[in-house]
């Protein structure tokens, strides 16, 4: 038996998260879709708090709601108005079918399974006295190799992003445009 606050918080935050995700699908403007996505990320951070994962919740707000959404806004602003709409592609029907089928399957399993019986022992909730300290020890202890690989991955992602968007000199850019124009003509023909 949880306290009322946790139960109410769970349902409200779940509703906010799912409504944000639905807004991403429904929004006509790509910027509005990004704002709905931020709402969904913040709701997810709240769900992490109801799971007593305080460190993950803060990391979620910082990285998803902060950094990634700012990157998305920048990407939209760097590709001007013509690419601002959030329309559906040809594959929306099979995509919706696949997504709804997957969601229905997982929800069916979640509802059908006898969690109350299981949670007597193996699936009872546990509370963590010090999440951040234990996660830190895990990251530089048991998972130190993955930690180092992740740092190298971040470095190369940073370098790759810089190299990709680096402005070339004007004559190079003109040559590239001409080349692209030729390619586009071939395609049209």
């Amino acid at each position: 038996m949880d306290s009322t606050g946790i139960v109410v918080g769970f349902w409200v935050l779940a509703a906010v998260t799912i409504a944000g995700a639905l807004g991403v699908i429904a929004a006509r403007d790509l910027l509005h879709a990004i704002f709905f996505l931020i709402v969904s990320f913040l709701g997810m951070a709240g769900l992490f708090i109801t799971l007593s994962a305080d460190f993950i919740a803060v990391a979620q707000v910082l990285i998803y709601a902060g950094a990634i959404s700012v990157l998305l806004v920048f990407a939209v602003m760097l590709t001007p108005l013509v690419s601002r709409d959030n329309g559906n592609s040809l594959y929306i029907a099979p995509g919706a079918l696949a997504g709804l089928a997957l969601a229905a399957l997982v929800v069916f399993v979640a509802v059908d399974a006898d969690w109350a019986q299981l949670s007597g022992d193996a699936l009872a909730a546990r509370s963590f006295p010090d999440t951040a300290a234990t996660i830190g020890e895990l990251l530089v202890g048991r998972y130190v190799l993955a930690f180092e690989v992740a740092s190298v991955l971040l470095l190369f992602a940073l370098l790759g992003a810089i190299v990709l968007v680096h402005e070339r000199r004007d004559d190079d850019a003109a040559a590239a445009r001409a080349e692209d124009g030729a390619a586009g003509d071939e395609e049209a023909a």
Partner: protein
Amino acid sequence: MTVELGHYVAVSGVIFGLGVIVALGKRNAVAVLMGVELMLNAVNLLLVAFARFGAAFANDAAALSGHAFVIFVLTVAAAEAAVVLAMAVLVYRRRETVELDRITLMRW
């Protein structure tokens, strides 16, 4: 009325399904990336929920391995977002569009 593991599994499944719809059904490359981020978020929720409802884990360190995995997922998601958005800007600069239906250079 209690909140159990099943509730979180259901929410995670719904978010993942909506992410699949966005990733497969949107025309704009940035919107597709948003769908992928939604799917990663759903998986993060599942990892954290199983860490929380895991009294069978031997100790806190074993249960919090789920949280460590979430940290790695966050790292990969950030790196992926940076690279994909750089690619979107590059593609826009060269082809004047980021609509995936119209980037057909490699179509047979």
